[in-house]
């Protein structure tokens, strides 16, 4: 089984500053980490590999600038078998659509049975890239996974929902998006850190390597349908009130009263 985990290198904070002119993140001076949901995905993949114990491998794929190499080395030091960095100037400025287009092309090149991505990245928070990759590849997907197991020739996923869980069975190949709760990531090991540089390599795939896998009009800044119009810091929402076991009439009256209280109606 070839388990592929897609990871993103992100700034190590949820409160990075925005450049007010370009509306992009100011990354200078902020340490970079593997996105937490993605890191849980790596751990889940490693656990799956260990549980299967049948020669299955874990491959890491990331799209990003050359500096993202260190995130891939970290994944190798945790125990991943191989790593690919999809990197090219032509990929710069990609939105989620263009990114998923490129990653899907990379995955076609690399090969896969189970693809695990993080649910969402802490810098963009879109939760779009994983599902989009599955669409590009035409394979089934399950998002918000809290548990991933392989049973026979099926992948069984426990999906988190607001008030319940869904147990989903997917054929292989498929894509699963992981929550940080999925698995607490292990540390790198000492031998892992050495091997990540001395025994393993990060293979870089650029535009030329992947061009047969996508329409060049769909990648990079020009291939991105999304334009950032304006960025701002969101005001924190209140905790909300929960009224249980009240009649429909009382519920309506309570809501009306609240709306009136705030001069909404």
């Amino acid at each position, binding site marked *: 089984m070839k388990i592929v985990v897609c990871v993103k290198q992100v700034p190590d904070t949820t409160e990075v500053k925005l450049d007010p002119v370009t509306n992009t993140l100011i990354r200078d001076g902020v340490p970079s980490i593997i996105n937490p949901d993605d890191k849980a995905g790596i751990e889940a993949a490693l656990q799956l590999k260990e549980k299967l114990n049948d020669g299955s491998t874990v491959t890491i794929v990331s799209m990003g600038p050359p500096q993202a190499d260190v995130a891939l080395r970290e994944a190798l030091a945790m125990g991943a078998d191989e790593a690919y960095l999809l990197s090219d100037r032509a990929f710069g400025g990609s939105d989620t659509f263009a990114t998923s287009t490129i990653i899907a092309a990379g995955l076609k090149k690399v090969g896969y049975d189970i693809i695990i991505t993080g649910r969402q990245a802490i810098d963009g928070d879109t939760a779009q890239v994983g599902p989009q990759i599955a669409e590009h590849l035409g394979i089934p997907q399950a998002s918000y996974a809290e548990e991933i197991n392989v049973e026979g020739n099926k992948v069984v996923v426990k999906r988190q929902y607001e008030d319940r869980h869904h147990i989903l069975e997917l054929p292989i190949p498929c894509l699963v998006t992981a929550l940080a709760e999925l698995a607490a990531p292990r540390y790198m090991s*000492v031998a892992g850190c050495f091997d990540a540089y001395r025994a393993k390599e990060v293979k870089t795939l650029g535009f030329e390597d992947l061009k047969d896998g996508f329409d060049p009009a769909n990648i990079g800044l020009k291939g991105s349908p999304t334009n950032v119009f304006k960025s701002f810091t969101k005001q924190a929402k209140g905790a909300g009130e929960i009224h249980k076991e009240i009649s429909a009439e009382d519920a309506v009256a309570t809501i009306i009263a609240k709306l009136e209280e705030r001069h909404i109606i």
Partner: protein
Amino acid sequence: MDFTLSNEHKLLQEMYRKFAETEVKPLAEEVDEEERAPMETVEKLAKYGMLGIPFPKKYGGQGADNLAYSMCVEELGKVCATTSVIVSAHTSLCANPIYEFGTEEQRMKYLVPLAKGEKIGAFGLTEPGAGTDASGQQTKAVLDGDNWILNGSKIFITNAGFADIFIIIAMTDKSIGTKGISAFIVEKDFPGFSIGKHEKKMGIKGSSTCELIMENCIVPKENLLGQVGKGFGIAMKTLDGGRIGIASQALGIGEGALDETIKYVKERKQCGKRLSQFQNTQFEIADMKTTLDAAQLLVYRAACCKDAKGNYGPLAAMAKLFAANTASDVTRRCLQLHGGYGYTREYPIERMMRDAKITEIYEGTSEVQKMVVAASLKVN
């Protein structure tokens, strides 16, 4: 000459720091207060390879190097000196002599489980009458058929309370002095071997420091380490390497104290100003940082020299002499910057000051290091 760390060492440093902050630091105060060995941490150290760093993979090690090992002890030492000396004594004083002087059979039997962290190691050289004068060994070993029979006792043995495998130095022929000293690999369950008194100490309180008692202790002949009569050389060579570990520990304690102090002086206000705004604070911090960096260069140089199979003994002695002195000096000055709060056990700085002192004493006092350095210059 390149003073930058390789990519793999940078990655390791990141891992050690994360591990130390998350797994080791939260226990440091408790381990000190309760004077207990952090066995739960030892298991994790084993899991991530920190008990077999510089040994080849075929012997259960991580295939890394002595610099990687030194950095591990340093990072652990920043947050918990007790934890760092467990790694240091185990690696340098027990696993390393088996790696360097052991037969292939001894390496497979003892080094493999030690390097994997399945077994913990210790080293018995010091005796009540043989401290700095290590040649004054009273423990005797006599060959009786297929076994060596050991009699005597050792004191101040680090890791003794929970170690499985001990390197024991003993006299096999008193008439020829140091040439009559030999080394043995002793398992804790060998008949006639027992652990005596646990020492109560000023610092590194979680570290287990005990007496070893050998009463007609039966050690199989094949557990002789190296040749008969080579034990003193093995012990001295082992301590040369051990000093890299203790120097790293001392460095870590000093760096940890400075980290805590920088945090403190940025928060604490007196006379309407943060302590960090006073020039005395700035000069103290700058001075300590400079000395610590100098210590780090000496420590890393000694580790790299061992990796390059150079004559690292005098370099390790200089590194330990300077780093231990720096640790004691820096922790004392850091406590002073903390004022009264630093003297309370609310803050880790008093613990660090207590922990630092031992680095000037064990694995060769500072005075012994000076003897080693002077001798290397043929001034003797």
